[in-house]
Structures are given as C-alpha cells and as structure tokens.
C-alpha cells in the first residue's frame, strides 16, 4: 500500500474544467458553483451504471430470475391451454389457448418487473450498499429511472421469452403490434415503480413477498387472464373494474387479439394515471429518505 510510488492516472474530467469551488471563482463572476459540475453527464453515466448493474444482477442469478417464470408460463399454457383448454369452448370468438396467452405473457411481465426492483432495492437497503448511491452526486430521479429500467429489462425479457414459448402452443400474431408493445412497456414501468415503493417500506424479507404473493398474484388471476369478465354476474363485473390488472391484461389482449373487455383508451388512461401516481410517490419517498436515511 503506497500512495506515491507512481503518479495517479490522468483522467479527463467530466466537465470542461476542474470542479470550481467558490473561492477559486473570480469575485466578479457570480456563477453558481453548481454550474461547474456537469450534472447531466454525471446522471447520464450514473443511469447507465445502475442499469448495467441491475441487468448484471438478474443475469448472474438467471436460474432464479429467468428460468422459473418461463417454466411457470409453459405449465400454464400446457395445462390450461392445451390439456384443459381443448375441452373449453371458444372465448370471445377465440380458441381458449389463444385467449389466455396474452394474459400469461402479461402476468410474467407484471411479476418479474415487480420482483426485480423489490428484491434488488431491498437487498441494497439490507446490505447498506444503497449508501453508495446516496453519497454520490446522483439525483433521486436518476436512481428511480435506473431501477425502473432494470425492472423493465427483466419484465420485458421474461415476457418476450414467454411470448416465444407461446408460439409452440398458439399461432396468434399481434393485431396491433405498437399497442401491444406500448402496453407491455408501460405496465412493466408501473409495476417496477410498485416494486420500488414496496422495497422502500420493507423492513424484512417477509415484507417483500407479501405484496407479490397476496396482492399481485390474486389480482392478476382475477384480472381476466383466464376468463372474460363478461362471463361474470353483473355485480362481480362491476367489482372487477376496480382491479387495475384488468386494464393491463385487457389492453395487452387488445393489442394481440384485437378484442378486449375494456376500451383500449381506458386501459391506457388507467395505466398512465397509475404510473404518474406511483412515480410521484416514489420520488417523494426518495426525496424524504424514507426507509433509506435516518
């Protein structure tokens, strides 16, 4: 350990000059010291770093993160689609397997986006390496977007894998590819935000499994993955409208099959309102330091 036996590497500073402190600025230049730091460059590189780190994380533990959800989806399609589905009559004018494939893909996107962020952010809290970000000049919005992008990367990757697998069971092709993709991306974003908020509040490993197990999974099942709400009695149809999953699953189904229980613009509106609300909450929590600062 020797600090001086060779000179330190010369690295180009990220801004045009050194970090200017008030004392080194000319007295007649009332420039803000903040201006000397190229915050855009710092946040751009920090964002890329967080995303790279997040993708490395789930890729490193692919046996836990990628394989099980894909196997689950295959089982759903095999059992509900091929075996049981072959005895079920058409639904909304489609073969049963074709009807459930969009919901199964969406379920993978929802669960994986959520799980990725909740696990990763909670681990960074438990092992305290969230502090690496908190002591760095990274803005909170970059932290939120970084984790969001990581969750979306996993949600959309697993969703795509499930979509590829579904080609073995169903021969449907998206009727509205752009809508399909947009709904998937926005839903993934929404549940990544949900995972982040869950992780902020979580104090134990139980706290990060309660929401996925007791809220997300039941709501997804009840959100019309396996049935059309038009099959339900009027009362339960109305109740179902309060389930946010219904809007995502039906939005995605509209993109793929061109049919849906819910008008597509209603789906978009609901998703966007959720994203805006959850995004605002996530930013407020991070700015306040809830769960991560003392």
């Amino acid at each position, binding site marked *: *350990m*020797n*600090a*001086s036996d060779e000179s*330190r*590497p010369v*690295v*180009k500073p*990220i801004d045009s000059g050194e*970090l200017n*402190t*008030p*004392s080194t600025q000319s007295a007649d230049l009332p420039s*803000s*010291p*903040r201006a*000397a*730091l*190229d*915050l855009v*460059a*710092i*946040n751009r*590189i*920090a964002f*890329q*770093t*967080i995303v*790279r*780190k997040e993708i*490395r994380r789930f890729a*490193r533990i692919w046996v836990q993160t990628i394989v099980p959800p894909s196997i689950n989806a295959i089982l759903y399609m095999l059992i509900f689609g091929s075996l049981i589905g072959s005895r079920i009559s058409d639904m909304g004018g489609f073969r049963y397997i074709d009807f459930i494939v969009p919901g199964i893909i969406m379920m993978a996107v929802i669960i994986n986006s959520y799980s990725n962020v909740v696990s990763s952010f909670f*681990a*960074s809290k438990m*092992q*305290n*390496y969230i*502090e*690496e*970000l*908190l*002591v*760095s*000049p*990274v*803005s909170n919005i970059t932290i939120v977007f970084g984790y969001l992008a990581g969750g979306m990367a996993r949600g959309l990757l697993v969703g795509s894998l499930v979509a590829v697998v579904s080609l073995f069971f169903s021969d449907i092709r998206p009727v509205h590819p752009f809508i399909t993709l947009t709904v998937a991306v926005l839903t993934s974003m929404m549940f990544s935000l949900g995972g982040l908020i869950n992780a902020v509040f979580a104090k134990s490993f139980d706290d990060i499994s309660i929401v996925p197990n007791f809220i997300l999974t039941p709501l997804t099942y009840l959100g019309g993955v396996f049935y059309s709400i038009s099959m339900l009695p009027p009362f339960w149809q109305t109740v179902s409208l309060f389930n946010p999953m219904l809007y995502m699953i039906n939005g995605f189904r509209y993109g793929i099959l061109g049919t849906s229980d819910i008008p597509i613009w209603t789906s978009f509106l609901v998703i966007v309102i959720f994203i805006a609300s959850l995004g605002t909450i996530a930013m407020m929590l991070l700015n306040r*330091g809830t769960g991560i*600062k*003392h």
Partner: protein
Amino acid sequence: MNALSIAGLHKTYSGDVQALKGIDLTVPEGDFFALLGPNGAGKSTAIGVITSLVNKTSGSVEVFGFDIDKHPEAAKASIGLVPQEFNFNVFEQVLPVVLNVAGYNGLSRRDALTRAEYYLKKLDLWDKRKTPARQLSGGMKRRLMIARALVHEPRLLILDEPTAGVDLEIRRSMWSFLSELNEQHGTTIILTTHYLEEAEALCRNVAIIDGGKIVEHGEVAQLLSRSMMETFVLDARTYSDIPVTLGPFTVRVRDENRLEVDVPQGHTLNELFQLLSEAGVEITSLRNKTNRLEEFFMRLVKRPTTGAA
C-alpha cells in the same frame, strides 16, 4: 478555505434521542483531522450528516464551501466515504464494486477502469478483482472500501474507524498510505478512531466529541501539552513499604515487581528516580502506561456515574 464547516448542527432521532446537540467544527483544506469520542458520542451521526446519509434536524454543513442542502451534488462529489460497517454488495466482484461507484460519480467506463485498476493495485487488491467481495478477508474488505472511496478522487476523504479489526501490519501500511495521500496529493482526511495512538501518529488537528457535543477542538500537539499528567509503569527489583505519595508523585503498587506512578506536568523523571532511590527502590525498566492522548481523552470524557463507555 475550509474543507468542512459545520455550524449549530443538531440531530434528534425519532424517539427524541438527541445524537448531536449543536456541533460547530471547521476542518481546513489539506488537514489530517481526527474525530474522537466514546461509543455513542455522535461521531458516526456527524459523518452521516456530512455525507448526506442522515437528515439533520438543524444547523448547516458546508463541504469546500458547498452547502449540503443548496448544492448537494457538488458537496457529495467532493467527498469519499469509508464507513465503519461494510456496505458493498457482497455478491458482487471486487472490480465492479469500484466501477459502479465510479459510474455513480460520472466517470466514463474507460476512465473508471483506469482509476479502478490504479487504486486496486495501490491497495493490493488487483489480483482479487474477480473475487466476490464476500470472500475477502476483513482487511481486504476495508481496503476495498478505501479504493471505492478514492476512485472519483475526492478532495475530502472521510474514514469512520478504518482500522477497526485490522491487524497491526495492515494498520501500519494503511497509515502510511493515508499519510502519503494527505501529504503528496493534498487530500483532506478526516478519521474517527478508537485507537488514539492512530490519531496521535497521523493527525494534526483533533476534535473530541462526547454526548453529542464537541468538548475539545484543536491541534493534537497543543492538546497534548495541556495534558496534566502522565502515568508510567515501572518494573522494580526491590522495594518495601513504599509511601503512596512520593513528593509530588502518586505511587500505586500493582504487584511485587510493578509500580504505577503518576508524574504531574512540570516534574521530571530525575526527581522521581531520586526519590525512589532514597526509598530504596531499584528500577529496571519503565514505559508509558497509555499514550498521552488516550489519557487526556479518558480524563475529558470520564463520566462520574456511568463511566466513559
């Protein structure tokens, strides 16, 4: 220019626990500064506030003139932190741990690699770059945190008990590394430590914090000169019925071959030896009981009822 200026800093945790009760502190640029204090005195809370890990209740903190509320990014960019507890992803390899923090500080991938290689080599960790952090020894983990804190070349390096649980050899090499960093690169260094010997050997200035308040603040040399008394342990060959006070000196018999003597400031060891000879005591060797800063410190933070810890 001050590397750090703290004024009127208060921190009250939930449950009405007052960790900091109005701290005022300045650390000049280029200083090697020790923050001493018993456990629970508020050292780590103070560092937490400076590095934006702890929200303060009131007061102001400036790092190289940047207010941590008004210009948090500029203040944070100036600081490198080596915390007390290990706080890296233990499943991550050594090199990515350093590269990630370089990225959070806005260093491009190429520059981050150059710097990470330099500091990991400096801290004898380059061979371990592909090792998951959890497999490192305690000393290596500590050095990893130093490399990580330096990768963006901060002007202020803060180390919270950096040598806790580190063996003597590594501690010495860390000392020389930090001294050179301070002397040759002008990095301002603030460290908290329990090893007062460390503060005496390394630091120019010191603040002693106790019960959330700064109870002393000044040059190490100056504080030591104010130390009123030094205690020596004497190995004695023969003595019998030695008086408890020997002129100005207080003598305690530890066992049949050892005495402890308090030597007040202004008195010499010659006087002591003369009185001991007259009392018929033969001395074979002597040493300081504790280092001087430690004695000073203990006297300062001593609490009459509960003790210092």
